[in-house]
């Protein structure tokens, strides 16, 4: 589906477990890494490869919040809004981002560059408020720091 390199990587993953089904989460990560999101065809492929039904794979993809079922923005901003971040001003941060991008939480900018999401505790309470931008945590944020960071993104 995604080439021999991809299938080799999947084979290596499957070999780490006593049953192929256990490779589910890491294989879905490989799909998302390769395609940017997980579509129905990918779910079918994974189901076949791991010996389960497509509906089982769909159940997994829809359960875990980090698997994307649609393409998202180039920059996926996930703002933590749980208690410790709330105490240190995350609501103001969210408002600032919504205003800057002219979108609401859960939306993507029309040019496809930025997606804004609200997420639960990211395990960074000591450096609140913060957000995760794609793979990276950005901590101890102020509105100024945020603007500088976003202004300088390629």
């Amino acid at each position, binding site marked *: 589906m995604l080439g021999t390199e991809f299938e080799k990587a999947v084979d290596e993953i499957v070999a780490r477990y006593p049953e192929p089904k*256990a490779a589910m989460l*890491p294989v879905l990560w490989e799909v998302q890494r390769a395609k940017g999101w997980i579509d129905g065809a990918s779910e079918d492929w994974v189901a076949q490869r791991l010996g389960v039904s497509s509906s089982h794979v769909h159940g997994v993809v829809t359960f875990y919040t980090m698997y994307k079922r649609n393409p998202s923005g180039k920059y996926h901003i996930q703002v933590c809004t749980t208690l*410790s971040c709330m105490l240190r001003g995350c609501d103001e941060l969210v408002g600032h981002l919504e205003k800057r991008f002219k979108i609401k939480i859960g939306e993507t900018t029309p040019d496809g560059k930025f997606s804004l999401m609200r997420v639960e505790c990211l395990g960074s*309470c000591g450096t609140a408020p913060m957000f995760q931008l794609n793979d990276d945590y950005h901590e101890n944020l102020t509105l100024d720091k945020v603007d500088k960071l976003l202004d300088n993104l390629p």
Partner: protein
Amino acid sequence: MEKILTRNIHRESSQSIEVYESNGGYQALRKALGSLSPDQVTEQVKKSGLRGRGGAGFPTGLKWSFMPKEKSKPHYLLVNADESEPGTFKDRLLMEEDPHLVIEGSMLSAYAMHADACYIYIRGEFVHGTRQMQKAIAEAYQKGYAGKNILGSSWNCELVLHVGAGAYICGEETALMSSLEGNRGWPRVKPPFPAQFGVWGCPTTINNVETLACVPFIIERGAEWFAAIGNDEKNSGPKLYCLSGHVKRPGVYEAAMGLPLLDLINEFGGGMLHDDRPLKACIPGGSSVPVLTAAECDVNLDFDSLAKVGSALGSAGIMVMDSSTCMVKALLRIAHFYAHESCGQCTPCRQGCGWLEDILDRIEHGKGRAEDIDLLKSIADNIEGNTICALGEAAAWPVQSFVKRFRPEFENHVTEGRCVVAAPA
């Protein structure tokens, strides 16, 4: 107290195996494989009084002793690195800054329970931690600390990092097993217990990252040394405390088990964030444990002391709230978390958590009714004890404790139709 768990973290290249070994790293694993039987390792851990640092505080040596004495199936050790309890960020620190400590602790523990493989389940959001752990695991394999014939012995044990994908519930040990097997993260009824029928139907033990990080020190310096740290032998050892919220210096601080909460806030944490906003409330063990009023904060941070005052040490996520905090808004934010994270299996949790959030939302936005406050308690009381896993209790306890200790604030929201806690600009 000298730095024990955090002794490496500020050293240059602390993550590398060279730095780890230069500071005595992997000596405990060598000692165990060279001169101790697996049962002797378990005995030491039992004697040390080590209790689980993931949230439940269950005696670790006792948990290990549940594994079958006769081996008829593969044995598995699962490392719970799914740290997601709000207020908690200590396991992340260990994995990012001293991954070999986590690996040595895991392999020592795997040895104690005759494990054939050790899977480290790390939450998907910890991308940086995942990279550090991956590198360290590769280094460990190269040096013969994992894989076939570990340190020249006849023991084989694979060490595999397994990355989660965003689900708090996967930190619950049976949900972690469901997820590892390739399913939705649904908790399972116990019994059967993991040690009898765990992952892939095999004897399994699940331990928290920090718990396992204690094991090399217990083996190296002795159970008695570990048991002597802290105020009493039932609450022993070094402890990582996660301080967050309205303090000047939030962060992870290591101290002996039993550190006074006020010392954590004032000595380690630099005191309250704003000098003119005094302490109002504190959740001492991650959002799942009952909140304490300021008056109740004169307490030691250990399992039994906090249990005595009707709360818990939990995951040691200490969240400090000052006088500017609206307790209704804070509880609403917590309730949203549990409603979002409920796996959906059990009706009381699936329906109850959402209902609690809806009521709190109405109260917060001036649409509360007088009967809503007792209704909150009634719903929480009916979730508690009626679910497959402890997320039910975790959702119920904040509601019960906030309403009990801060009831006038809830009543005010209802009668005034708004929040009367001044929120400064």
